[in-house]
């Protein structure tokens, strides 16, 4: 006897008394938490965006009498703006391609070949992720500007007059942005490259393919989804870069959207409306790219990773060994060692001199820092904003991940969308939106560190949800179900089963957020005041005022302090897990 298996409305189903399983079926506590979480995220994300939309339709600065207008949006069609758009996209494409290539290559070399000191290199590349962009810009200006070290070398030492480098150029900007983003590409591609099922490649080798053929015909195609995804995300990050184009682009008359917005708002005559329209259009661009990336990532779930941390046969490098080592080490030198050395040098000289033998040295920058109340306040604020803010961010992200990936109450797709929206909103744009919103909302957070915390959490929430969510989906549902059948309520199941298993990813998310908050400048630059100065804004304002000595000293001291803090945290939390890694940095 065959039963009908396709029924649109079963007669019995229609006789049901509805059970309030939706929001509160899993308990009132969880239901309330869900509502609160949803509300918080919605407010965080929508308030600045709404402020921007409103601002783009007005013809006066916020708070001043004005009227509604479409001229701001019309202004987008002017030649200047279109040119800036073209420059932004061009720089974005070039640098994201470069960084994705370099980063993927490094990931492959470090994790699939027998290169020496792979663990050290991996740790160094990951470390480079946290170097703020303006430090890279400063270092490379010193190295590559018309009066810089390279030209000095070429002319004074080698006697070459015809060839000059100029950091204040498109190439210069692309180069430094690419350097800055290589670690991102590396970290994104590392997982798929490590997780690849070795049997695909082994089958190819068994069929007679050479190492290079295997790479070309099996490995790369298998990675294509991850690669495309990484490319798109890198593109998004590249077009919202602020500090590098600001320091390196302006002397060369190169403007990108992010710096353009900043100029429109900071310097006269200010055009808030146009800035808002610009910001929104930049956001639409990045949002589109983000949507593209999510579609690719979703397809990729039918992935090549089997989760079998298998015995991957390492590709022997043979005579390519030196090339590969050079390739990887040169990145670390260019992006980490050189800038830090230059940073140290600049911090101890009175005024710039390319020749360390002839420079006038001084410790006054460091002495000033030790005695400066502003600096002390910056450190304290940074601790609050980064240390405490990251904690809040992790809590929020954990809740969001749980609701969107496990519990899935009604409306969870909207929550997921909201939480990820700000990734596509450039920092400067977000800062502008927040400036407006909170200058005028009757909420007394303007000018306090609270608004910075809000800005950073809004901006980087998706980093944390990706980290935590990625782990949550790996925890088999049956582990929670077993807890329920054993008599645990949902809350008890979360507390005793889910959370303990997810803790490493929470720690990883905390570190990630902490460092992201620490190095963030774009969204803070419009919001900080004397009392809410954090390290990044202090350093930035010194840079902006061309007091590189002070900026360098502050950067070095700041970075050392932060690393000590993080290392201490890592030690504290490592003890709790026997043999389990925090997952933060490779090998750590």
């Amino acid at each position, binding site marked *: *006897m*065959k*039963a*009908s*298996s*396709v*029924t*649109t409305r*079963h007669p*019995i*189903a229609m*006789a*049901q*008394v*509805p*059970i309030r*399983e939706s929001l509160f*079926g899993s308990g009132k506590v969880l239901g309330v938490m869900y509502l609160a979480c949803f509300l918080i995220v919605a407010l965080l994300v929508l308030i600045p965006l709404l402020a921007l939309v409103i601002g783009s339709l007005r013809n006066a600065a916020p708070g001043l009498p004005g009227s509604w207008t479409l001229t701001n949006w019309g202004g987008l069609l002017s030649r200047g703006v279109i040119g800036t758009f073209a420059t932004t996209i061009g720089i974005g494409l070039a640098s994201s391609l470069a960084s994705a290539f370099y980063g993927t290559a490094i990931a492959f070399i470090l994790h699939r070949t027998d290169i020496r000191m792979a663990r050290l290199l991996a740790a160094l590349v990951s470390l480079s992720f946290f170097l703020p962009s303006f430090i890279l810009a400063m270092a490379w200006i010193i190295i590559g500007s018309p009066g810089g070290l390279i030209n000095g070398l070429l002319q004074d030492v080698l006697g070459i007059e015809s060839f000059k480098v100029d950091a204040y150029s498109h190439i210069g900007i692309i180069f430094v942005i690419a350097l800055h983003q290589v670690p991102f590409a590396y970290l994104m591609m590392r997982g798929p490259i490590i997780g690849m099922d070795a049997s695909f490649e082994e089958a190819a080798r068994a069929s007679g393919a050479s190492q290079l053929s295997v790479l070309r015909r099996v490995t790369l195609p298998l990675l294509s989804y991850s690669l495309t995804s990484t490319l798109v995300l890198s593109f998004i990050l590249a077009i919202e870069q602020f500090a590098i184009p600001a320091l390196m682009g302006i002397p060369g008359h190169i403007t990108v959207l992010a710096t353009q917005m900043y100029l429109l708002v900071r310097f006269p005559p200010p055009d808030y409306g146009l800035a808002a329209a610009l910001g929104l259009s930049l956001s639409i661009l990045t949002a589109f790219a983000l949507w593209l990336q999510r579609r690719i990532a979703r397809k990729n779930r039918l992935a090549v990773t089997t989760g079998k941390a298998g015995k991957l046969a390492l590709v022997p490098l043979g005579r390519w060994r030196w090339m590969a080592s050079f390739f990887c080490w040169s990145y670390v030198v260019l992006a980490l060692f050189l800038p830090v050395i230059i940073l140290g040098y600049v911090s101890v000289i009175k005024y710039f001199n390319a020749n360390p033998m002839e420079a006038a040295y001084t410790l006054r920058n460091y002495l000033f820092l030790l005695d400066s109340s502003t600096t002390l306040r910056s450190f304290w604020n940074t601790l609050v904003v980064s240390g405490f803010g990251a904690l809040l961010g992790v809590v929020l992200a954990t809740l969001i991940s749980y609701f969107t990936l496990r519990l899935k109450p009604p409306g969870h797709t909207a929550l997921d969308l909201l939480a990820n929206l700000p990734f596509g909103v450039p920092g400067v744009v977000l800062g502008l939106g927040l400036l407006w919103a909170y200058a005028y909302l009757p909420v007394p957070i303007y000018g306090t560190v609270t608004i910075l915390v809000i800005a950073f959490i809004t901006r980087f929430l998706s980093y944390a949800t990706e980290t935590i969510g990625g782990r949550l989906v790996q925890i*088999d549902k*049956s*582990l929670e*179900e*077993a*807890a*329920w*059948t*054993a*008599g*645990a*309520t*949902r809350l*008890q199941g979360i507390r*005793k*089963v889910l959370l*303990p*298993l997810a803790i490493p990813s929470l720690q990883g998310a905390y570190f990630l957020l902490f460092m992201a908050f620490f190095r963030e400048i774009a969204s803070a630059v419009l919001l900080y005041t004397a009392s809410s100065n954090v390290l990044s804004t202090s350093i930035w304002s010194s840079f902006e005022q061309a007091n590189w000595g002070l900026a360098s000293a502050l950067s070095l001291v700041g970075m050392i302090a932060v690393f000590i803090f993080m290392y201490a945290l890592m030690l504290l939390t490592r003890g709790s897990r026997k043999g389990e890694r925090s997952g933060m940095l490779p090998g750590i």
Partner: protein
Amino acid sequence: MGIHISNLVKIYGSSTVVNQISFDVADGEFVTLLGPSGCGKTTTLRCIAGLELADGGTIEIDGVAVSDRSLGIHVGTHERNLGMVFQSYAIWPHMTVASNVAFPLQVRGATPKAAIDEAVRWALNIVGLDALAHRHPSELSGGQQQRVALARAIVGKPKVLLFDEPLSNLDARLRDRTRAEISRIQKELAIPAVYVTHDQAEALSMSDRVIVMSAGVTVEEGAPRDLYRRPSKRFTAEFIGAANFLAMTWDGQVWRTTDGSAVDIPADQQAVAGEKREAVLRCEVLRVEPADVVLDRMHIALRGTVRWLQYMGPHTEYAIEVAGVTIVAHSHAEFTVGNLVNVTFRPQDVHLLPANA
């Protein structure tokens, strides 16, 4: 009081995955839900556990209604006093064996610590894992993890035991051993159990009753022996054990196969001339003889040709074309493809399926 399920319905999207399933499990009884994947057996089990929200029908555990959509009743999983063993065992990797087993008692909060330790010792003892109480799951083998899951399920003296294909991840030899253990423990504790599997050997050996399911409905229900020897549905016959089917027609006096051979089996029902029925012939009741051997009156013989054979070790499996169909039989004798043989069996080993099978 056992379990009482009536007209259970579960709908996913536009398909009805569980369509009016009803059955009871008496105190101490072991009932298996058997069927191919997608038949709704696991969904039914999860409805009993409360992990799925039933769309219709009622579920009662130990006399208490835990699910009844028409009255708006849905008791949460954690309040149903169950013990459940999952296919993946679901042993928590961050807790020791003892902590895993103690969990159901700790989480309800009602038992003092000393009593919990006592209960854990008892449960581990029953499954034979006393020595491993302080190990971590990552140090245990699959079979040992399975037993931890079992200990955890019974430690709280639940009202009902649920098993979701618990043996499918074990290798064959371990499966046999563990099958016997589960059966023994359940009988000892006399807790009503519902067991889900697609493996008919498990179903036959462990259950008091088997419910055969397909596409969301119950095909047939009965004791293992009855289902095996005298199934009333072709599906059951096919699914449980290896079966050969022979189409037969009643010519008024005797049943005949399609090629006219007479099969002289007792006509235990009123058969109408021209009526068609199917006979079930299990492999193990068939013998294969050379065609020229004289047979005794106790056996019915059907002539056929060997089409295909496979050496299995204890016997050779032969596919023989008889009366237009291919029959599978086992024999120690050696034949080759193309040999003419007689497939013989006793009349009482033939089971005629009912007319509407």
